C-alpha cells in the first residue's frame, strides 16, 4: 500500500492504496468522488475525464501515484453552493445529455477547453471532445451546450460556418 496525497477540488486528500491503483479507482472508491465514470478502463471512451493541473486526463490511464501532489478537478467541484457552473447550466438548458454517463467527462473536457482562454471555432470544439464518446446524442446538443457555455463565460461568439459550401 502507498499513501497518496493530492488536492481534489481544492481540498487536500490522502488515501492508502495498492500501487497499481488508477487515479479513477482512487477517486471513485477511496475518496468517494463517483462523478467520473468507468466506461472502458483503457482510455478509449473519456467517461473518466478529470483535470490534472488544468489538463484533461483519462483518469483510468493515470496511476494514483502519478497524481501525487497534483491538483485534481472533478465534476463535483464545478458548482458551488452559490453558483451553478455555466457549462452545467448550458448542458441542462439545451438537453445536451441523455443517459448522462458521458456527461461528467464531457463537461470536464469542455472546461479544460474553455479555460485555455483561446478563441474557439466549432471545429475546435469538435476536436476537443473527440476523445469523449457518446452514444445517445450524436454530440449535436452537446456541442450546442458547449457553444452556449463558452459564449456565456467569455462573452465571445463562435463563428457560424457552413460545411456545405465546398
Amino acid at each position, binding site marked *: 500500500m502507498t499513501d497518496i496525497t493530492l488536492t481534489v477540488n481544492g481540498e487536500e486528500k490522502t488515501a492508502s492504496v495498492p500501487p497499481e491503483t488508477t487515479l479513477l479507482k482512487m477517486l471513485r472508491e477511496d475518496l468517494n468522488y463517483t462523478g467520473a465514470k468507468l466506461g472502458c478502463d483503457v482510455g478509449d471512451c473519456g467517461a473518466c475525464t478529470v483535470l490534472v493541473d488544468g489538463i484533461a486526463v483519462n483518469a483510468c490511464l493515470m496511476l494514483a501515484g502519478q497524481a501525487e501532489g497534483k491538483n485534481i478537478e472533478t465534476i463535483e467541484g464545478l458548482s458551488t453552493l452559490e453558483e451553478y457552473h455555466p457549462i452545467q447550466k448550458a448542458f441542462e438548458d439545451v438537453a445536451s*445529455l441523455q443517459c*448522462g454517463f*458521458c*456527461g461528467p467527462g464531457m463537461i470536464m473536457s469542455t472546461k479544460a477547453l474553455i479555460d485555455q482562454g483561446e478563441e474557439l471555432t466549432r471545429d475546435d470544439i469538435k476536436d476537443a471532445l473527440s476523445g469523449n*464518446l457518446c452514444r445517445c446524442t450524436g454530440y449535436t446538443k452537446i456541442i450546442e451546450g458547449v457553444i452556449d457555455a463558452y459564449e456565456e463565460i467569455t462573452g465571445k461568439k463562435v463563428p457560424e460556418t457552413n460545411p456545405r459550401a465546398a
Partner: protein
Amino acid sequence: MADDVKTKEKTESLESLRKADDNLRLPTVPERTLFPKEIGIAPAREQTPAVGQRATRPDGRMHGLGQTKYIDDMFFPGMLHAKIKRACISHAKIKSIDVSEAEKMPGVMATLIGKEIPVNSFGPSYQDQPLLADDIVRHAGDGVAAVAAVTEQQALDALEKIKIVYEELTPVYDPMEAMKDDAVKIHNGESNVYSSKTIIKGDVEQGFKDSDFIFEKTFTTQMVEHVPMEPHASIAEWDANGRVTLHTSLGRITLGRADVSRTLDLPINRIRMIATVVGGNFGGKNEITTEPILALLSKKTGRPVKCVFTREDEFISSTTRHPFVMEYKTGMSKEGKIMARKVRLVCDGGAYCSWSETTLGKACILSAGPYNIDNLHVDAYAVYTNKTMTGAMRGFGAPQVCFAYESHMDDMAKELGIEPLEIRFMNAFNEGSTSPTGQLLEAVVVTDSLKMASERFGWKEWQK
C-alpha cells in the same frame, strides 16, 4: 500592527493544532458534491399547457452535476465483486468444471456454476439460453462460471484458476451454411432455422408478369454492438426473509423480474428490481444477464454482490444487431410504379434466440418499405450460428431492410431515368393505404416527410 501579526500567528497555530487534533479523532468524511442551493426552474417546465413545451429534464441536471447514481456508483457495506469466466471457445461440450483452486484464492468468497442454478435457461421468445453454460458452449462469449471476491482484481485472478475440460464440437459461423440440412445442429433439433415468417399479399408471380422491368440484388449487413456508455451492471442483495433486491441496468424490469423468478424458482413477490437510471440501452439492456447469478452468489455469501461488465464482456457476451442477407426482386412498370416484390431475408441469429423472433417479424413486415405494393411475397428465416447472440437493437431489423429497399429503389430509379425523389412520391403510402399485412394505415405522412426533408436539404437546387 505588530499585535495584529501576533494575533494572526496565534490563530493560525491554534487552527493547525485543531486540524491535527481533528485528523486524529475524526473519521474521514467524504467531500459532499456541491450544488447551488437555489438553481431555479426553466420557464418551459412551469408553463401550461405542458404538451409541446421544450421542458428541461430534472435527471439531466443531476447528470450534469455528476450526482446521478448509476449502479457502478453504488457501494454497500460488505459488498463483493463478481466476475464471469468466458468460454473463449465457440462450440464445445463441457466435460468438467473444477472451481476448487479458484475457491482457495485470496479474497474469494464464493463461486457458481450453471448446474447450481435452479432453472438454468432464459429468453424472451424461447428459453434456449443458459445463464452459465453447463453442458454445451455455443459461442465464445458464453459464461461458464462466476466468482465473487472482496475486490474485482481478486475475482479476476480467481477466474484464471478455474479448470474446464472441453470436447470441441464443429462450429458453424455462416448463416447460409448453417441453414443447410447437413450442417452441425447448434441446439438439438432438426434444423438451425429456429424461426421463419412469411407475408403474402396479392399474386407476386402475376405481378412480375405484368411488370416492364425486373430488378434483382442481394444486400448484406454486418453485426454491430449497442455500445451503451454504461456497461451492464447489477447488484444483488439477498436478505434474511429470502427476498432479493436487484439494482440493475435493465430497461424492462417487470419482465426481467419474471425471468429472475423463473430461473431462481422464487415467487415474484420476493424479488425487487430497481432500475432508476440506465446509462444507455438501445435495445441491449432488455434482458437479464447476470442478475440471477449475483442473487445466488449473494445468497451463498450473505453479502451484496456487484458485477459490472468490462467493455470486453459488453462486446462478447451481450446481444448485438443481426447481420442480414437480403435478396430483393422487384418488378416495375416503365412509368416507375412498383408492381411486385419478392424478398428473402436470412438473419444470422447467433447462438441464442433472444429477440430474433421479433426482429425477424418486424423486418419481414417492413421489408417492402413505405410503399404501395399490391403483390408481395416475403420469406424470412432466423438461423443459429456459433457467434455472439443477436437481439433487440434500435430498429429491430428495420435499418437492415431499409438499407436494402432504399438502395434498390435508387438503382431502379436510375435505370428507369426517374429522379430518386419522384419515384418515392409515386409509390409512397398515403392516408388509407394498405400495409403488407393488410392493415389500413392512418395518420400517414410519408410524402410530407419526403417533401420536408428534401426541401430543407435543397434537393432540387443542389448541384455537385
